[in-house]
């Protein structure tokens, strides 16, 4: 069906113009002076129409915008006829308002420019909002955190560059495409729980994204908000912790290795103690039975007694052999002598205690004469020495219940020896010597007793000496002297 349009008559046009909420104005070419302007200008700029008539619009533009309007917009309007532009214009109160104007040129039949008609509206609120968003976006883009916006259907509506670096372009993807299903469950649980009523969850959830083997991200915050349609949106803040996880795993592995070795060494040391303690009475039994065989006045009296004495002597020697074999079996790893940097070893051990010390507010510091002091010996066993002594220090500080726990490890070359001192501000040893300490601990839980015995055994094996120095203040100070340089196996 053909539709016909009637031209608007002049009265109607006048009515529409007068009552339009948009500002409609007519300007003369050149300075764009106002020829006509409707009442809406009052709401926009605070001026009555008559205040502006004959005034050049150019004078009201913001200086930052005036130049570009004059140099770019005006020629375009003249040439092409229509152009829409956002710019700032002066309000009667002296401030500026953002407006959006569409300019149209009106020409005579010969094509001469007669006037320019503008339709303008206030867009300040929109521009401010846009600016705010822009600022926010730049913060979001610059942060080292991963920022992910999800809509109600859990599709990505926005992600920052950090996310893009890891996942590539994922806008529009569902969260199901990003994380494996078991991880999704965890995330959904967090999204739906809101105990505090703040629409926000904070914590730490480490998840491995789908198909990105090496990557682990830690979700730290999930914020729920509602958009204009009252639909839920979620903002996920996370951090790439892949490297941290690798480092943590390395330390954990090392700790496990060290713990397993500690246990083995504790067993070996226990076997040694047992051997020592059992061998004493066995030696006594063997001595008496052997002696009886030799003492003629006893052995010649009774042949059967002689035989029994012989058996007792043989059996006690056999028991001694069994103990020796058992010790060899339980000794585990034999001494392996290498040349190693004691300072480096010390730093590695301190790293193993990092978490524990921090949790207990204990500061561990190293003080080395220089950073490479070499020792010929068994680095693994020497590691145990350091571990046991630092553990003892930590236990001693804990017993004292102080907040400024302090452990210092110093290593220095003293002539042909290496001096290693471990000091702390814990409960200390009193005035006890090493052997008194061992005797003391043997009767208690035995933990430190074995640890200290291992220390002594290893130091002895390295032809070193261990002693307890009298601490200057309170606390403990253990000194170990070791021969410097390479020991031939």
């Amino acid at each position, binding site marked *: 069906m053909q539709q016909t349009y009637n031209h608007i008559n002049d009265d109607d046009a006048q009515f529409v113009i007068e009552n339009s909420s948009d500002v409609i104005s007519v300007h003369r070419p050149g300075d764009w002076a106002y020829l006509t302007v409707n009442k809406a200008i009052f709401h926009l700029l605070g001026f009555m129409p008559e205040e502006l008539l004959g005034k050049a619009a150019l004078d009201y533009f913001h200086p930052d915008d005036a130049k570009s309007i004059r140099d770019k917009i005006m020629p375009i309007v003249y040439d092409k006829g229509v152009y829409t532009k956002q710019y700032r214009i002066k309000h009667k109160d002296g401030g500026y308002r953002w407006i959006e104007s569409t300019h149209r040129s009106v020409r005579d039949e010969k094509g001469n420019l007669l006037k320019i008609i503008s339709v303008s509206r206030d867009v300040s609120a929109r521009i401010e909002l846009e600016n705010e968003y822009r600022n926010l976006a730049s913060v979001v883009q610059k942060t080292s955190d991963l920022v992910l916006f999800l809509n109600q259907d859990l599709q990505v509506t926005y992600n920052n560059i950090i996310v893009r670096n890891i996942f590539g372009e994922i806008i529009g993807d569902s969260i199901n495409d990003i994380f494996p299903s078991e991880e999704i469950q965890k995330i959904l649980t967090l999204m739906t729980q809101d105990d505090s009523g703040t629409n926000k969850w904070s914590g730490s959830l480490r998840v491995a994204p789908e198909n990105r083997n090496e990557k682990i991200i830690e979700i730290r915050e999930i914020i729920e908000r509602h958009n204009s349609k009252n639909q839920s949106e979620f903002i996920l803040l996370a951090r790439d912790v892949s490297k941290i996880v690798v480092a943590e795993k390395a330390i954990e592995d090392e700790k496990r290795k060290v713990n397993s070795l500690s246990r083995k060494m504790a067993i070996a040391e226990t076997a*040694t103690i047992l*051997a*020592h*303690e059992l*061998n*004493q*009475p*066995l*030696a*006594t*039994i*063997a*001595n*008496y039975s*052997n*002696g*009886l*065989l*030799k*003492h003629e006045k006893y052995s010649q009296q009774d042949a059967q007694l002689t035989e029994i004495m012989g058996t007792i002597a043989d059996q*006690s*020697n056999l*028991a*001694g052999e069994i103990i*020796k074999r058992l*010790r060899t079996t339980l000794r585990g790893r034999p*001494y392996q002598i290498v040349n190693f940097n004691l300072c480096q070893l010390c730093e590695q051990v301190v790293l193993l205690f990092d978490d524990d010390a921090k949790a207990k507010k204990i500061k561990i510091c190293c003080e080395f004469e220089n950073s490479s002091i070499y020792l010929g010996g068994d680095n693994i066993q020497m590691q145990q020495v350091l571990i046991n002594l630092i553990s003892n220090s930590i236990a001693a500080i804990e017993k004292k219940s102080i907040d400024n726990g302090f452990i210092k490890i110093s290593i220095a070359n003293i002539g042909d020896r290496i001096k290693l001192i471990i000091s702390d501000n814990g409960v200390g040893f009193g005035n006890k010597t090493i*052997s008194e300490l061992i*005797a003391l601990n043997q009767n208690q839980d035995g933990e430190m007793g074995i640890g200290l015995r291992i220390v002594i*055994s290893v130091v*002895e*094996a*390295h*032809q070193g000496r261990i002693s307890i120095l009298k601490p200057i203040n309170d606390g403990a100070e253990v000194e170990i002297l070791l021969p410097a340089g390479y020991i031939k196996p």
Partner: protein
Amino acid sequence: MSTQIYIVDDNVAFCTSLKWLLSANNRQSTVFNSAEDFLQNYDGKKGCVLLDVRMEGMDGISLLSELKNSDFALETIIITGHANVGMAVNAMKLGAFDFIEKPFDDEILLNLINSAEISLTQKLKNIQNKQQTILLWQTLTKREKDIAKQAINGKSTKEIADFFDISVKTVEIHRSRILKKIEARNIAELVSKLSAIIANLD
């Protein structure tokens, strides 16, 4: 040659049994229940020390180190409830004669004691020889001492003659007199004897 045996061990029962065992083998011994006890009460006679390593107070290794720096005519056998390589190396470095683990066969211990005593006798003989050589050295004249020193440094007769600006003949006369006084059959024996007391050559 039977010498004195000293047992140093803090395990009283073991000491008593060992003393008894040794007596069954016709060997007399004295018991000390600590290193300090030994240092205070040792009668100074030559002999063999049967030494425990781990003792309350001063340990066996420390005592061994003390003995090494003394003039005591003693050989030491370490007797321990358990041995480790480091301790053994340490003990041998400090001059221990040997090492035996508890419990032990009495024959093995007695053989060890015998060997230690032979070693001690040899050591004492060496000391005696050295003292004898020092005495003989003092009988040399100033010139003979100078020439002897040159000789033990490996200088030839010609070199010595040139050094002191004397004739070869004179050096030879001095040399034969030196050999006689030091009671050495030849230059090799002279060098060996004097090298042993090199620190005492004035």
